[in-house]
């Protein structure tokens, strides 16, 4: 197990390197530079700016400079936010985005699992139908439609919660719900499907036959195998949450990493784009690793490293 984790950790490095190189060359291959917008820039100023950010050098030198910085953990200066380094910008927005994403994931897992297991345990009851209709609706409402609708209802009409911003717990409620709902709904469906499959197996019938109360049959025997599909969905789900954060942060004006990414991509602020993409990829790769390890712990049939 430890060897497996170590191996996977090592395999992260080339992946991140490839992502960094790909983003670098795509951004540099594009026509138009980061200073195109400032029209009234004299030739002299432009040249000194370009020298400062190494734009006067050939592309391969720029690549080496950027990758060298990366190795030292230095992502370079921002082009648009004057006097700020990419490291500062990321440090600024990272915590906010991580908190938002973690809360949404937690909400989705807790709520989705409970709803799915409840629905699966009472298949074809009114509760099952109700929960599954809700979850189908939840999957189909895009979170960028849901977010504004929640604001319209709870902030602008009922005045219960703030419209936008990020200044305390009350500000976090709507963004978290808007971000979490589609994944909650999907997890509920997966958990229900897993439940239905497990409940038909012989060992559940045995557990029932020996007179175990239904509640214990579900909790002790059915639960663990039933949640396996949910565990394997957590990897893709985290990727979706990361992208979902982009719109949620822009709807609720949350000062997170996602907003920096979108603004920087539009402004061709290369270093910030590269930095944010790297952070996101690293997070994602590590999260996938975590999910695989969790899978191995939960499912004793999975054995790594022994072929």
């Amino acid at each position, binding site marked *: 197990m430890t060897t497996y984790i170590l191996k996977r950790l090592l395999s992260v490095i080339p992946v991140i390197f490839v992502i960094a190189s790909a983003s670098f060359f795509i951004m540099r291959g594009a026509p138009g530079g980061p200073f195109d917008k400032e029209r009234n820039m004299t030739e002299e100023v432009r040249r000194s700016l370009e020298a400062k950010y190494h734009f006067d050098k050939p592309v391969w030198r720029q690549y080496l400079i950027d990758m060298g910085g990366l190795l030292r953990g230095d992502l370079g200066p921002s082009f648009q936010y004057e006097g700020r380094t990419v490291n500062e910008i990321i440090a600024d927005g990272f915590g906010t985005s991580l908190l938002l994403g973690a809360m949404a994931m937690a909400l989705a897992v807790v709520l989705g699992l409970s709803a799915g297991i409840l629905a699966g345990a009472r298949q074809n009851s009114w509760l099952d139908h109700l929960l599954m209709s809700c979850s189908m609706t939840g999957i189909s409402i895009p979170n960028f439609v849901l977010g504004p609708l929640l604001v319209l209802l709870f902030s602008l009409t009922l005045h219960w919660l703030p419209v936008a911003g990020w200044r305390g717990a009350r500000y976090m409620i709507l963004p978290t719900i808007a971000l979490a709902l589609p994944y909650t709904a999907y997890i509920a469906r997966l958990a229900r499907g897993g439940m239905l499959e497990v409940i038909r197996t012989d060992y559940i019938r045995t557990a029932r036959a020996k007179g175990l109360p239904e509640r214990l049959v579900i909790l002790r025997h059915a639960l663990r195998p039933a949640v396996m599909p949910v565990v394997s969905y957590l990897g893709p789900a985290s990727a979706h949450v990361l992208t979902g954060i982009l*719109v949620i942060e822009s709807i609720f004006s949350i000062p997170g990493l996602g907003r920096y990414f979108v603004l920087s991509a539009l402004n061709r602020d290369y270093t910030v784009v590269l930095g944010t993409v790297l952070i996101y990829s690293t997070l994602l790769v590590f999260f996938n690793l975590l999910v695989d390890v969790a899978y191995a712990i939960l499912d004793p049939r999975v054995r790594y490293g022994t072929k």
Partner: protein
Amino acid sequence: MKALGPTRIALRLLMRNRMAVGSMIVLSVIVGLALAAPILPIPPQERINLEYGPRPPSPAHPLGTDDLGRDLLSRVLYGTRISLAVGLLATAVSLVIGVTYGAVAGYAGGRLDNVMMRVVDILYGLPWMFLVIILLVVFGRSILNLFIALGAVQWLTMSRIVRGQVLSVKEKEYVEAARAVGCGRRRFLFRHILPNVLGPVIVYSTLMVPAVMLEESFLSFLGLGVPDPYASLGKLAKAGADAMQSYPWMLIFPGAVLTVILFSLNFVGDGLRDALDPQLKK
């Protein structure tokens, strides 16, 4: 009594699924209206009427008008056309890539299969939406770039499904029998492998259309979707979200239409899956 072929059985099962049938009817109505938009008696979507301005729904404008006085019903119908077109085209792109890739890997097997699937595994773990955004920023926002970028992202799952299916079909006895009697490679592929791969591919494609439409609207919402003068449902929803405080109908109607389309497509896809794989639903 006449025995029913697998297609007939699947069709009959699908028709018995009330949610799927209802969804198909709703979809046909929406798609029909969207396709008929140019000949419907509604104002053209681009006609600006600043004096009239944004007004709530009325008999003249059933869904109201937007901030420039444009008829919202007309905008929504044309937006639906764009969203559906992007969804279908991007799905087609990923269908071609995914099926080819998966079929080659599954058919070749062995080391080539191993390498090809490792590549898919690695690509799977990447934050694709970010690369799509970078690509769109760099190469410009055109409808063509949009659906190539979206299709290029969606093929991964498709290739996995196709490969798995090809692998399992390859091991079946009837395939071995076909080989034994000297069935040619071409006949083998088209007569024995393809029909058995078709079911999951149809199901997954049906589910991919709403997924792609969602991604397109997501990009539109960030200001990276279809370029002007086109408007997709996501772009209309974005305009609505910006103006919702004063003109909430601008958000509600495009959002509702988008949700209803996604909802119906998901149900049809689910219904198809249940119908094509009767063992799944008991």
